[in-house]
């Protein structure tokens, strides 16, 4: 009985569905109507802001989201316009992008590539986002970048410092404004050689994952180029919180510099531990022992407190810069939220503006047209001086800031001081540099989807 019953029901249902399908002439396949994925059709355009709202980089994510909201406000003509006024390209007039009002959707990457891809996919498949941006770690950035390449969407990377993003994992649809490990190394090495001399012996502690590897490689090569010697490089597990067992062996060697290739909570703990061990008061080989942190962020400096005083590192941008762009951005961010923006906020704000401007110049949302407009685009006025979006690997080239922990901070935001602005020529590299994946690395061809 049940058998025939069921078959009939199934047949009826299938028949009904098939009938409905056949009866309708307006059957579409994804986005085929305009030649690329999620072409905006109405009076609005949707951008996807995919940032870590939970997990270890939630602080950076929250600051990124603030900057995105500010950027959207400025693009739609609200607020004081921020860096739109100082940006060298003048296509942004506060009327959205290509005259379409900017709307946005947000998602939580949880600092996991799976969750980030799920969130990005829902933005593409459900919300019709035409561009995805964000990410606060290289693993996530690389994963989402590959997804956007497959789907035919532009990806504007947020805070991602590993060489891989525009190195061996570069993609035609992905763009990065933030600097990378290689640049950190190249910018830091001369400053370190100046300050500490050319015959130093360095000991590296490196977070045991991709970003740590590329940073260690970059710093080792750059400092050895200056005449330094690398005594040892030890990998530390990412989840390590007590670094004393890694710091103690440093004292047994004749190293006189400790390089901490750590980020976030790792760096806060390892630096604190190193200072507590009295490394900074040591004298080895008749030289004062020194500590270096290749990648600094204000949030980290705040976590490490007084321990960062006098310690060198590099950063993408700092709010205390005095060029017109930085001042305008710091002002409008500060007015809206009551505190100065972080480098993560700055880079995502720039990325949003750069995308909007590229669309305006290309007069199309088509990812291939946008990519063409961004490639080899030179601009100024976004806080980093003259900048080039190189076409060969979609990496921004700009001056790199070498910073030092401030001796007498005046507030909890005023922890770093800019020691030197390393000119872009010094951090430039060939697109097929061995650290960037060598000759094998390729962008592939641009994918408009559909």
């Amino acid at each position, binding site marked *: 009985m049940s058998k025939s019953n069921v078959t009939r029901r199934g047949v009826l249902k299938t028949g009904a569905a098939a009938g409905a399908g056949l009866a309708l002439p307006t059957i579409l*396949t994804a986005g085929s109507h305009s030649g690329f994925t999620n072409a905006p059709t109405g009076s609005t355009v949707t951008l996807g802001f995919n940032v870590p*709202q939970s997990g270890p980089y939630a602080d950076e994510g929250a600051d990124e989201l603030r900057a995105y909201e500010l950027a959207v406000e400025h693009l739609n003509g609200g607020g004081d316009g921020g860096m739109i006024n100082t940006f060298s390209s003048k296509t942004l007039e506060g009327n959205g992008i290509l005259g379409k009002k900017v709307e946005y959707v947000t998602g939580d990457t949880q600092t996991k*590539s799976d969750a980030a891809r799920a969130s990005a996919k829902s933005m593409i498949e459900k919300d019709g986002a035409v561009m995805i941006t964000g990410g606060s770690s*290289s693993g996530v950035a690389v*994963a989402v970048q590959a997804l956007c390449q497959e789907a035919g969407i532009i990806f504007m990377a947020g805070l991602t410092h590993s060489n891989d993003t525009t190195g061996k994992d570069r993609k035609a649809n992905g763009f990065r404004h933030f600097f990378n490990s290689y640049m950190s190394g190249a910018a830091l090495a001369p400053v370190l050689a100046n300050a500490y001399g050319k015959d130093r012996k360095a000991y590296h502690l490196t977070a*045991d994952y991709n970003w740590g590897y590329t940073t260690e490689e970059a710093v080792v090569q750059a400092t050895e180029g200056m005449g330094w010697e690398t005594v040892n490089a030890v990998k530390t597990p990412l989840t390590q919180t007590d670094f004393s067992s890694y710091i103690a062996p440093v004292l047994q060697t004749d190293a006189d510099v400790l390089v901490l290739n750590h980020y976030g909570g790792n760096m806060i703990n390892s630096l604190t531990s190193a200072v507590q061990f009295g490394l900074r008061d040591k004298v080895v080989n008749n030289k004062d022992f020194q500590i270096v942190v290749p990648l600094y962020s204000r949030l980290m400096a705040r976590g490490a407190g007084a321990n960062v005083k006098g310690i060198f590192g590099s950063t993408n941008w700092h709010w205390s810069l005095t060029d017109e762009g930085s001042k305008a951005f710091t002002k409008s961010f500060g007015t809206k939220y009551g505190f100065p923006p972080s480098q993560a906020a700055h880079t995502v704000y720039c990325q949003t503006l750069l995308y909007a401007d590229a669309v305006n110049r290309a007069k199309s949302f088509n990812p291939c047209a946008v990519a063409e407009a961004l490639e080899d685009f030179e601009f100024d006025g976004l806080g980093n001086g003259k900048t080039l979006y190189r076409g060969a690997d979609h990496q921004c080239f700009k001056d790199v800031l070498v910073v030092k922990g401030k001796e007498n901070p005046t507030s909890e935001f005023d922890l770093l001081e800019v020691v030197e602005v390393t000119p872009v020529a010094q951090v430039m590299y060939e697109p097929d540099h061995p650290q960037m994946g060598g000759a094998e690395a390729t962008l592939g061809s641009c994918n408009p989807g559909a």
Partner: protein
Amino acid sequence: MLGLNNKDLRLFIIVICLTVFAPFILNPFPETSELAQFNAGYPDLMQRFIIFGIFAIGFNILFGLTGYLSFGHAAFLGVGSYAAIWMMKLLTLNVIPAILMSIVFAGLFAVVVGYISLRRSGIYFSILTLAFAQMSYALAYSVLTPITGGETGLQIKATDTPLLSNLAEGEIGRANLFGLDMRSSFELELGNWLFTFNAGYYIAVVFMLIAFYLSIRLFRSPFGMMLRAVKSNQQRMNYTGLNSKPYTLAAFVISGMYAGLAGGLMVAMDTQVGPERMFWTASGEVVLMSILGGAGTLIGPVLGAGMIKYMENIISKINDNILHKWFEFMPDGIEDFLVTIIHPFIGKGWHLTLGLLFMAVIIFLPGGLVELGQRIGRLFRRGGSKDTAAQSTPAE
């Protein structure tokens, strides 16, 4: 029919209908309405429902039947995923060999882990499996970077040239089934509604239905009865002279193979693997899925998986902006007040919402969502008569 009794057959047919018509069922709100936010009928999420459904069904074979709480099941998911992506990178972009290999490798790994972990039971077993999973995670994250790609994971790249696929120079390979792209979709527009029928989704559905059918058969088999006996009193079983270890090991391996299948399907639908797929929170998630839905029941874990994935993907995307749009019609003061009240439960607060829901289920519905269904069913069948002698099959 199919060797199932009437009740199971009915359940199986319900599951078939639900999965086949999911694109309609999950998209109840028209595109233009504000409620479209709650639509879940887009390919990625539907695929996830199915894949995590399989994962939970497999976990339930171990946990629901034998009572052994594995706290490291995500490791098998990860091993399956890595096996699948390497098959695609090296051999062929067809998903079938990838999925088969993912099952095989996860099964082999489960034999090793199970053989060692099953020497203990209870909390010690859980800790052992947890340790294995975390070890796998740490290995994949850093030590085995050349094989696993480390933190950035593995993807199919333009430089990959699988043996049996002929790709044009620089073309990025796509997972397919004999040429049918996993991501190709057929969209049906009915008025304001948009329904998407995705190739990958239906392939996953086929696997899930097979997996579900096998799990019903397993539940009703003498082997399943033996596993239940292990759960109710393993010591007594041992005293009767019966060696229960082969049974538990078999259940463990089957369960691991289900997880491997889920991992392989994940790669087939979305060609990328990252190590955090094996992190202990992922293992914890499948435990939550089973308990939320109803451990030891056939359909429960699938419902639990759907619930958690829905919260993760839909609730986490609601932001203050959207709330303001919803409450626009109210006076400013009340609007802001309501947004402030709801704010902690949306966006990144989806964990909190899920936690509250989980607590509510544990306290009021110890049998999970299945018990809720049973209670509602009884209400209808008996015209609301109070039946306090309610007996439910879920986990004791």
